[in-house]
């Protein structure tokens, strides 16, 4: 179930987004009008009050969102599956016996042969979003592909080497 995000306008200051976690803690992200941003954690004794406020500059905010976002891409894609009719998502493992281990992604010719897009490569704990045709595939990678059901089945067979 998606978390409930509450949006509050702060006239003249900016916009605040609140997320209340399962454990009842309130986490706020404040986007200031002048471009700055703060994150704050609500006090446990007094949930109306922020016990700690941290200012983030642009680079820090990007870094934080990447750290959090990387692990979230897969979850978000799973959500997409339910939203768009006729479009599916498949996580395709690159096994050690696949003909494409050590070869660039472009060699699979996924787009021309199956009309599927490979939107990310998951490698151990890392996520490579929007990989290019020159990115080399390794054994153990997982390809995240979007396309029609038939196209994806075809792609699974291609990557598997059959």
């Amino acid at each position, binding site marked *: 179930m998606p978390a409930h995000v509450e949006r*509050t306008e702060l006239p*003249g200051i900016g916009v605040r987004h609140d997320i209340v976690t399962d454990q009842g803690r309130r986490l706020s992200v404040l986007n200031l009008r002048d471009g700055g941003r703060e994150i704050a954690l*609500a006090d446990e004794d007094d949930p109306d009050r922020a016990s700690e*406020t941290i200012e983030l500059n642009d680079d820090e905010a990007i870094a934080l969102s990447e750290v959090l976002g990387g692990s979230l891409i897969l979850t978000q894609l799973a959500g997409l599956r339910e939203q768009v009719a006729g479009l599916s998502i498949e996580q395709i493992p690159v096994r050690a016996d696949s003909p494409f281990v050590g070869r660039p992604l472009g060699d699979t010719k996924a787009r021309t042969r199956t009309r599927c897009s490979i939107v990310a490569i998951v490698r151990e704990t890392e996520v490579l979003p929007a990989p290019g045709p020159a990115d080399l595939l390794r054994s153990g990678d997982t390809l995240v592909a979007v396309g029609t059901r038939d196209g994806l089945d075809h792609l699974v067979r291609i990557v598997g080497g059959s």
Partner: protein
Amino acid sequence: MDHGALVLIEIGALILGIGLLSRLAAWMGISPIPLILLGGLAFGEGGLIPFSAGEEFIEIGAEIGVILLLLMLGLEYTAQELVGNLKGSRTAGLIDMLLNAAPGALIALLLGWGPVAAVAMAGITWVSSSGVIAKVLQDLGRLTNRETPVVLSILVIEDFAMAFYLPVLTALLIGTSLVTGTISVVIALLSVVLILYIALRHGRFVSRLVWSKEADVLLLSVLGLGLLVSGLAAGANVSSAVGAFLVGIAISGPAAKHAQRVLTPLRDLFAAVFFLFIGLSTDTRELVPMIVPAILLAIVGMGTKLLTGYYAARRAGIAEPGRWRAGFALMPRGEFSIVIAGLAVAAGVDRSLAALATAYVLITMVVGPLLARIPDAERFKAATRRIQANRRAREAAA
């Protein structure tokens, strides 16, 4: 020395002086406005060093300062935000007005200044300083607190109410007879409604009219439009400040954002000149007898704001500690109170009114932000938690 050189020297020394005062204020961690007011008092009529040659500049600069203060305030808000807040927090806004306008009106009547001065004083004690309060909330790390939207919506409603209050006050200040007075009030309010309608329905058109990617073009267009509408508004007896405020509201989106950026330095300069002007034109000999009434008024006025904030936060479902935080945060009065006093005295109301307003603003602006820290003290937190626990126990028993 010829006159031109003397004017430059005086103005230069003044602005440099304001710069030093602002530096001192930053070091003390307070708003520079009270220090600038005090500086003006020291150099003005009855002060230490009389000041003459740059008077004309200061006077016109002060007028532009008021217009810029309101133009920028208008730019902060969109018409939709104003109307939305008005719908959501109407009751809190009304309570705020009744509780906080009353002490001012009463003291004006007690001092025998007449009903028009009572309306002016009502405004002076009613309006909190959105500038100072926003700064305090930021400094105390309360922007993400849940009571903060409550505080802000009260400020927004007050600022919005000024769009109607100022024209009425201006009309009352000018109005000679009941009939002409009523007519000018009606004309003033109709003009406000008309401009507001344009801002709400055709704000995008106004924004497009002034929009430019070039900073200088945008600056000149927005400033020009603001001054022009202010002048027209003053001509129609609506008060120039309101004209500027409404222009600010009508401009929205990227135009408002960039206009804010380019106008901020100008606002800082002319607003400082305005506060200095108020200090300069307040006679220190008039200030002394007003000190005791100002202190009493400040105590009552801060008390009524505390009640307002507490009540508004309770209505919004905020727990005990947050209610106190909202109440304490609302205490500082500022630029609007001074603007009102300036208007009133320019129209010939008892000059002591400006002295009282200046002292009142000085006290609330310095003491308010200090008091705002009280609810963060451990002892205070413990006390509010006890109140809350007792209340829960009573409710459970009942």
